[in-house]
């Protein structure tokens, strides 16, 4: 049991931090520009594939540096030449634009790399078990992912709160017009934030690629969860995004490993439901089986009881 708790906690925190790398960009873009970027998870996928390609040519370490830069530039270009033109037609047009973009990126990735998963391997330098608890070997690569994610969180937070650019970005989150009236180049700030957001998702893709499966459907698998994270955490709040990422990461990891059903819980109370009744199946559904639904149940609860999100201060 202790083994399960420890390993699940580590995995949950890791999954949560990966979510945060993506959700941080999404929440900044959302609250600053009002753009619900459906293509955000596609930048994560793009990061994994570009990383895979560069890793084949030049090795994993150049890929770790170069792939996020490539994805960041692609993101900046999407804002500059796509969204900025679509913007004057309103939020619905922007929404449809990013929605379409997600499909375009997925198709392009399938044309270039095919539909089946590519062989993106953990670098040999990190391909060993870091430690063994009880009977489980914990891979060093996962610890490396943890370290990268934490380093980026610290860097991002320091930049936003300690630098002038960061203060301008913070101000533009809530008052973009006023920031422009003070003479700051708001279109450039928007483009940069979009680019940096895409690059962060790209980093998540490069480091998650070898650990998970690098395939064209990876964006669609993760995309919806990101929106849950952003709304649960509160729009525009980085602390909220971090808290919600960790919460959902842990929630899902623990739920998957629990083979408990309602009838197990009541088994000692002398209460035994009739398995043949209409809702009889409900009693035998395990927590592991409903794990994928849990984030969305959390989303519904948050929207009912605290629509501003855990840390947010504006309505969704």
């Amino acid at each position, binding site marked *: 049991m202790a083994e399960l708790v420890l390993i699940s906690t580590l995995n949950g925190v890791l999954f949560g931090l990966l979510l945060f790398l993506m959700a941080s960009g999404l929440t900044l873009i959302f609250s600053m520009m009002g753009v619900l970027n459906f293509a955000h998870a596609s930048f994560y996928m793009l990061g994994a594939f570009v990383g895979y390609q560069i890793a084949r040519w030049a090795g994993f370490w150049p890929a770790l540096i170069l792939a996020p830069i490539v994805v960041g530039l692609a993101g900046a270009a999407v804002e500059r030449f796509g969204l900025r033109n679509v913007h004057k037609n309103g939020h619905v047009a922007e929404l449809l634009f990013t929605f379409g973009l997600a499909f375009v990126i997925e198709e392009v990735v399938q044309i270039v790399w095919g539909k089946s998963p590519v062989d993106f391997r953990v670098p040999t330098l990190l391909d060993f078990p870091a430690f063994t608890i009880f009977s489980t070997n914990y891979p060093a690569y996962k610890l490396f992912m943890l370290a990268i994610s934490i380093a980026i969180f610290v860097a991002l937070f320091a930049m936003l709160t300690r630098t*002038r650019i960061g*203060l301008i970005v913070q101000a533009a989150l809530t008052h973009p017009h006023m920031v*422009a009236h*003070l003479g700051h180049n708001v279109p450039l700030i928007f483009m940069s934030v979009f680019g940096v957001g895409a690059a962060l998702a790209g980093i998540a893709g490069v480091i998650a690629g070898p650990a998970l499966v690098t395939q064209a459907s990876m964006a669609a698998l993760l995309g919806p969860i990101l929106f849950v994270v952003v709304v649960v955490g509160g729009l525009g709040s980085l602390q909220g995004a971090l808290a919600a990422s960790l919460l959902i990461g842990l929630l899902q990891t623990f739920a998957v490993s629990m083979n408990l059903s309602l009838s197990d819980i009541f088994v000692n109370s002398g209460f035994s439901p009739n398995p043949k009744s209409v809702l009889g199946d409900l009693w035998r559904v395990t927590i592991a089986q409903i794990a994928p639904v849990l984030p969305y149940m959390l989303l519904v609860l948050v929207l009912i009881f605290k629509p501003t999100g855990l840390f947010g201060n504006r309505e969704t």
Partner: protein
Amino acid sequence: MLEVRDLNAYYGKSHILQGVDLDVAAGEVVSLLGRNGVGRSTTVKAIMGEVAPIGSVRFKNKSIAGLPSYRIARLGLGYVPENRDIFPSLTVRQNLFLGQKDAGREGRWKLADMLAMFPNLQRRADTAAGVLSGGEKQMLTMCRTLMGDPELIMIDEPTEGLAPLIVKQVGELISEIARRGVAILLVEQKLSIALDISNRVYVMGHGKIVFEGTPADLKANEAIRREWLEV
């Protein structure tokens, strides 16, 4: 310095500004008066590019109609909006710091000046600006725009909803701005401080300028005051 000719603006289909002509010379203090909803704020927003302007807007002999707001601001045109858009999560000091167009670029207004002039801002320099009182917020927005060293500052309803004592302080700051040679376009509803400190006044009604003259002219013209200003 600022020349507005035949300025029109629309919100959707409603024609808010219907050919506004207005001038502010260098170092001049001009007030734009009128009742609520006649288009005073829209005039300033159209000059600043926040509302799409149709017509001619020239600042320092350069056409600025259609330029993005940040370019207009960088030409030396400052704007203090009526809703006192302070950045609530940043401290007072950080708010003032972002008023500078580039880090460390100081003009005739320095951070130390501002804090010395307003002991309240000094005392709360490192608290989040969101918790300031209405009067303190008004001071902060004006000081923040001044940190960008504008040559002309447009101030929208600085005394709205403030206690008389604070109104007096706002008036003193506006006089100080004028003393340092900065031109002012003041949008006001109340006549009191506007008539005391202005060189010239405009009165607006239904999207047009209906009167232009000195404060003394306006005091003498009871018909205009009764029709367009007094409630």
